[in-house]
């Protein structure tokens, strides 16, 4: 109950705060979060009566954390605060992925991969950020990893394990969108990329779009398309206004698509209402980039993938005409239309994505290629390399301990040798010296061995007397 109320409260706060905010990304984040929270309230009410560890309270906590992260990021008043915002968003992602669907080995694994991969990017990000412009590539690596651009997409696809609202949040303006926003907001820090790198980014977008077409599950398809679209935002970042409008457009519509997909999955297929909504949202999303030939290729591929995702879930006659949970995708779509209505131009090229969407919906191509599995294998390889290093250093640790032990033993042994020498001297040495002395005296005394002690003593006395007399005489 507490979680529902706090989610409602969060939504109310977001709607209220939205009117006081001028920052475009934060505006979008607030609006999207309010829609997602209300959707989650309905979602959780339907699933009432189950008991889960650690509880549904993770939703408001995670959503709030993500919002705080975006807020810190866009209003950063200190370099450390900028990075804090950048990080808080990852932590929100971790906690939502790990806990939102109940705690399990799979969820923890997905959250682990997402967080660690992000942190690898962050290490480079930090080096680039503090280099004062000498190493902007580091910043870019961090951005590409966090935005899930092609080779780094696999953590996003793993994260699809989480329920629909969480995926919507991950793929909207809040988590990955924030990364793509960085070159627009802090362009003095990131510098401009050289021209050739834009070709690479375009290639990454193409790779992600192909991955989307070839992937199996509808949610994974959506995740792949995010990789393609955010790569396009970065591709467009040479013209900031256009990139920004594209990014916001994508954020609203992708969140809407995820929510729609979530409710369709719950009902076992698309109803007629949600099919219409799906087609219009998908067309609207992919037609927005149709003014450029190179973008059009990618848009056509992603549209095809979205059509294929629809086909995977299938159409069902039954079911409510208008489920309460699919209202929010509609609202988000309308909002996106208002947002980009001014810059929207109708052209013949916009038909290409529509046609390929239709092709995806009608024709089921047999190819299956799970690129993300390969990428995950690469990730596993890296991790196992680290585990190998870890095993090796534990061995080194054992050797080191053995070395110190041997060192201590050697020291003790050395001490023992000295002690033995000392006791040998005490036992054997002194009697030996005394014997020799006696023998010497007895030798001096004449006939050797037969002389008694008294004789030796008297001889000794005599000798010492003589010596002292000599001494007195001479000195």
């Amino acid at each position, binding site marked *: 109950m507490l979680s529902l109320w706090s989610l409602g409260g969060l939504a109310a706060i977001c709607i209220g705060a939205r009117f006081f905010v001028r920052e475009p990304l934060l505006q979008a984040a607030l609006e999207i979060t309010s829609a997602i929270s209300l959707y989650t309230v309905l979602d959780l009410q339907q699933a009432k009566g189950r008991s889960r560890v650690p509880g549904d309270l993770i939703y408001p906590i995670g959503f709030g954390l993500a919002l705080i992260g975006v807020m810190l990021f866009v209003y950063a008043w200190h370099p450390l605060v900028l990075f804090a915002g950048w990080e808080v968003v990852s932590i929100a992602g971790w*906690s939502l992925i790990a806990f939102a669907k109940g*705690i399990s080995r799979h969820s*923890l*694994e997905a959250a682990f991969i997402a967080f*660690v991969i992000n942190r690898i990017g962050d290490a480079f990000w*930090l080096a680039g950020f503090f280099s004062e412009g000498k190493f902007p590539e580091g910043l870019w690596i961090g951005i590409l990893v966090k935005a899930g651009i092609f080779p780094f997409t696999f953590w996003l696809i793993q994260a699809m394990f989480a329920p629909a609202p969480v995926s919507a949040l991950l793929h909207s303006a809040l988590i990955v969108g924030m990364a793509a926003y960085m070159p627009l907001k802090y362009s003095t820090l990131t510098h401009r990329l050289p021209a050739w790198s834009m070709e690479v980014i375009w290639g990454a977008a193409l790779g992600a779009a192909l991955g989307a077409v070839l992937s199996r599950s509808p949610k994974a398809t959506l995740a792949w398309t995010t990789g393609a679209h955010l790569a396009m935002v970065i591709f467009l970042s040479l013209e900031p206004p256009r990139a920004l409008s594209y990014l916001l457009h994508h954020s609203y519509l992708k969140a809407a698509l995820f929510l729609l997909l979530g409710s369709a999955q719950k009902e076992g297929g698309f109803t007629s209402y949600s099919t219409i909504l799906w087609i219009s949202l998908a067309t609207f999303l992919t037609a927005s980039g149709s003014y450029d030939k190179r973008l059009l290729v990618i848009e056509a591929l992603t549209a095809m993938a979205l059509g294929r995702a629809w086909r995977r879930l299938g159409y069902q006659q039954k079911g409510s005409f208008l489920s309460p949970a699919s209202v929010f995708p509609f609202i988000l779509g309308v909002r996106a239309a208002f947002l980009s209505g001014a810059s929207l131009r109708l052209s013949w090229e916009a038909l290409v994505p529509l046609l390929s969407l239709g092709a995806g919906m009608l024709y089921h191509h047999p190819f299956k290629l799970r690129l993300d599995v390969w990428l995950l294998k690469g990730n596993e390889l890296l991790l196992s390399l*680290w585990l190998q290093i*870890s095993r090796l250093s534990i061995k080194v*640790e054992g050797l080191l301990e053995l070395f110190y032990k041997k060192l*201590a033993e050697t020291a003790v042994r050395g001490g023992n040798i000295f002690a033995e020498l000392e006791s040998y001297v005490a036992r054997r040495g002194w009697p030996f010296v005394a014997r020799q002395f006696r023998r010497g005296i007895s030798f001096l005394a004449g006939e050797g061995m037969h002389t008694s002690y008294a004789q030796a003593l008297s001889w000794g006395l005599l000798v010492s007397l003589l010596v002292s007399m000599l001494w007195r005489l001479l000195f």
Partner: protein
Amino acid sequence: MAALILNLLWLSPVAAAGIAFTLTRRGLLTFTIGHGLFQLLLWVKLYLQREAALQIPWSSLAGKTFHYALAAQPSNLALLLLTIIVGHLALYYGQREVGRVRSFSALFWLALGFSQGVFLAKDVLLFFVFYEAALVPAFLLIYGWGGIRRKEAAVKFALFTLGGSVLFLVGMILALNSLPDSTYEAWASGGVSLAAWGLMTVGLAVKLPLFPLHSWLGEAHVEAATAVSMLLAGILLKLGGYALLQWVWFSLSSDLAWLLRIWGGVSLAYAAAVATGQIDLKRLIAFTSIAHMALVAVGAGAQDERGLQGAYHQLFTHGLISAGLFAWVGMVEKVLGSRRITELRGSLARQPFQAAILFFGAIGIPGSALFVSEMMIVWGVAAGSGWSWALIPASGVVLSAIYFLRTYRELAAPTEKVFPPTLSLPPYQKLVWLLILLSVGVGIYPKLWLDLLAHVGR
């Protein structure tokens, strides 16, 4: 007044050690709280006046005068507070569970008093006296309370630390040869020869500890009682780090700073690698503290004042969170009867939050105290030595996430094994939450502490 407070800061624990023998366990618990509050009051008074110093000529030898010089300056105020808070918390919870409580408390207070002395000393010889004196109660605490192999661990601890002290002593005497006297002013203004510098660094690296010299730490932490582990990780490791920053690496213009950065980096990677593969939870946390203290060495070699400030701050922040981690492990061991990760699989599935917050605090997420200090170190290294060097401390950010979250995954993923319904044990639970709260407080408003360090390195 200032002189009285400075003296009381280290003498009142020593006096308390004497009083401890006359009290019962219940009386001791009350007295510990009272004494902690009293010391806290002294600290607040010092904090308000920021600087206090006291210097009395002590004796002369070979034309040099040694002083009984104590001072509270902004750079050691945070560490004095750390000793008071973590020390008394650890002592309070130790007193609730150990046997032979009077001698335990007395030794603990002696360790606390001498640690305060180390932080306060403004004369290198006095510093050394305190540094050595703190070793004796620590040795006896490990020797007398803890696991089965504690005696070996204590002897190993003593031998290593004494070896380090010998190196430090030789280096110190070499350095003193060319100085008029042994006060901090003379020490900081006069040059220290290369040999002395190296000897002192290696000597202190034993206590910090850095890679090949860390061998004592794993065993000492694993075998010691929970309260003693908290003392070791929270306070005694900081003596080495503080000495390194205060007496050896205070200058930014050292030619050998790159050596310390590399040494710290190797130590960091090694400790992280060993921690990743550990199956004993306490040993794992011991190695994470090696990794965190290696960052202090990297910050000391940053050749930038931000790195130095970050290193000072890291001593404080890591003291809070590592004490919390050891208290948590103590609780887990007490409730579940084991520290082996293989036996604890699934134990956190029902109450995952406290451990998650604690682990994230140790990873150093924004809002936790470690975040600020680690970022200061990265920043300092990038600014002072170039961005490529900054990848060394930045890699710590990745590695700590790997070993803590892997452990968390092992402990929290549900299994068929049935565990007791609750992990919490009243006194420990509160202790862990208190330390988390302190760490979060320091992390959310770091300005208070960073302002104290603003003059360092300038």
